[in-house]
């Protein structure tokens, strides 16, 4: 693939990979001759977490496969903002079919490659949380169960953003969406049982499951690289804040992703063959308030006064995550 000369306006920034590091420790993104799977000029909103996550994830996958990559995309923001015909931001072989079938389409791509004896070209499928945890869950589970040689990446922004911010199975409790308005006795999304796809993926005992956020792009890249070093069905769940849907400042996208992990609301971990093997520790723990306050979708929890009951409930969820995934190194260790 041809390369794009990237101009760096900033050095020493994690955003382009730390150029103070040794060459072999640098990010794919710090290479001025990097291949750009998702190139500039697309139509994502300012501060879009998904665009950032997708570029880093696919560039890392390109590097890991020596550019021998085919990407399958579910319908959603990522598809719409990247390919308004006749334009395309993709510089990788790319196929979009439907909203709910990306895992099965990717299975088909992998099957065709296998039938043709092509062992070098690898397959990545990607979609938002609606495509992944709701409408495409059946095909995703089928792909996991057969252990098809596909890395599936979910960019989770916790609602159907492309259609105008409606609730999905991944929408957290109390969050305001267009279909869970902040009105009535229980404003925002209800407290349900949740539908945490990393655990559903782990229940299939697939070789690799990991979570990541766009607050730690080096961690995201490392996980993609690790996933691509394995064969079989692999799943990566990436938290990608959405300024439009979350009602946050576009400059705060990365900060909010970081607060999601520091509060314990979004655990970052890796699981191999169905067992958690590592988790990213919280160095500066913050109360959930700090995460919630930056997002208008939770503003009803703070106005006209703090809704202690609901915020405490959310805090308990964060506390449980911290305990379950051992996110804090306890005293004395």
């Amino acid at each position, binding site marked *: *693939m041809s390369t794009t000369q990237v101009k760096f306006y900033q050095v020493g920034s994690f955003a382009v990979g730390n150029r103070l590091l040794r060459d072999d420790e640098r990010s794919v993104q710090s290479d001025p001759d990097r291949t750009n799977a998702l190139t500039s000029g697309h139509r994502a909103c300012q501060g879009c977490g998904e665009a950032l996550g997708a570029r880093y994830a696919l560039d890392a996958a390109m590097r890991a496969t020596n*550019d*021998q*990559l*085919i990407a*399958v*995309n579910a319908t959603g923001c990522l*598809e*719409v903002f990247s*390919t*308004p*015909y*006749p*334009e*395309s931001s*993709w*510089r*990788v*072989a*790319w*196929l*979009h*079919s*439907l909203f*709910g*079938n990306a895992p*099965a*389409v*990717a*299975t*088909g*791509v*992998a*099957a*065709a*490659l*296998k*039938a*043709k*004896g092509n062992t070098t*070209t690898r397959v990545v499928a990607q979609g938002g949380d609606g495509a992944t945890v709701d409408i495409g869950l*059946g*095909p995703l*589970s*089928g792909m996991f*169960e*057969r252990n098809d040689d596909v890395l599936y990446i979910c960019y989770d922004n916790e609602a159907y953003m492309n259609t105008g911010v409606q609730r999905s199975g991944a929408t957290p409790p109390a969050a305001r969406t267009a279909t869970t308005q902040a009105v009535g006795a229980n404003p925002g999304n209800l407290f349900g049982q949740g539908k945490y796809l990393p655990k559903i993926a782990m229940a299939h005992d697939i070789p690799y499951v990991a979570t990541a956020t766009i607050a730690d792009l080096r961690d995201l890249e490392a996980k993609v690289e690790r996933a691509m070093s394995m064969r079989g069905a692999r799943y990566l769940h990436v938290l990608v804040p959405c300024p439009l849907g979350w009602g946050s400042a576009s400059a705060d996208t990365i900060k909010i992703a970081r607060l999601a992990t520091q509060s314990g609301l979004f655990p970052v971990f890796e699981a191999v063959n169905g067992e958690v093997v590592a988790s990213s520790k919280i160095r500066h723990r913050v109360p959930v308030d700090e995460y919630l306050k930056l997002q208008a979708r939770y503003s009803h929890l703070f106005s006209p006064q703090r809704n202690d009951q609901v915020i405490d409930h959310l805090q308990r969820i964060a506390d449980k995550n911290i305990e379950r995934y051992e996110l804090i190194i306890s005293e004395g260790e």
Partner: protein
Amino acid sequence: MLRQVEGSKAVADAVAACQPEVICAYPISPQTHIVEGLSQLVKDGTLPNCEFINVESEFAAMSVAIGASATGARTYTATASQGLLYMVEAVYNASGLGLPIVMTVANRAIGGPINIWNDHSDSMSQRDSGWLQLYAENNQEAVDLHIQAFRIAEEMSMPVMVCMDGFILTHAYEQVDIPTTDEVKAFLPPFVPRQHLDPAEPVSIGAMVGPESFMEVKYLAHQRMIDSAAKVQEVAKDFEAHFGRKTGGLLRSYRTDGAETIVLALGSIIGTLKDVVDELNLDGKSIGVVGLTSFRPFPYEAVAAALKGAKRVIILEKAFSTGTGGIVTQDVARAIEGMGIKDFTVIAGLGGRPITIASLRNYLTNAMAENVERLTFLDLEIDTVEVEINKERALR
């Protein structure tokens, strides 16, 4: 070499002779025996370099087919009835992306009420999906149509549905000749896709098309479907040259020369109709049969030519549009517009209701005298339904 085999087994062997690279399937009667046969052939090594994927739904079956075909693999699947409806979103996507997938539809009714037996409601529901639809009269034709379908699909870059009557054909043992892999190879060249997913030359397939181009994209699909009629004929001719059999093509006429009445139908009922028409001709009646093989593309000119000179055409259909009537009738009526031919429709065999020679003979005798309604439901228990209709009306 002639072999006495089940229709499904014959189709499985014919598909295997076409050397598909990816087969995906989900069980649904009466299609299951076909993919069971293929899974056996893949597993025992008879069909090498082929991936057989057991998927979790028909929606996934067509989706796997889309991914495989877009990667340049010759791809096959089979379904029926509810399964076809469950995959519909992907069915339209496959044709929209121009992917030459071949799919068998083992024709079966659609619920509710649930019914596993034969009619054409399933494939007829996909009339406007952008797929070619070829209907087999018997198991020999089912075999031959599958071999032709791969070639038509790949040369047109369009998907093809081969429709064969569920149970009546899929589960019937008949003598059929199944060409060998080498014989098929001489007829069906290796698949060279128009475009495919290749890291060496990355393309974006499936972009979002807005109002400024969507009409043009759809018009191209329309024109491609019209153009495919010539391809269907050309491939049938070449098939005859290779295998010595006249199968496939747009339609076939039987005893229509100078016939006053012509019955037009699709699928396995054509055989029964030929027997009835033979009997009626012995009685001095002037009646023939047109068997429509290609429903999509619809061969307007060929239908007009086949019906020319007749006084009336009777369209026998195994499906109908609720509240209006015959589906094929709409297209036939357009084909014969202004030709002075009267059209009558008979809906028969819904949900596997046997279409008997006695019933057909009785109906056709009345139809030849134009002593029937424009729309008739064959062997309908009229007393039973009238009681029910009156009850329902009283409740409204």
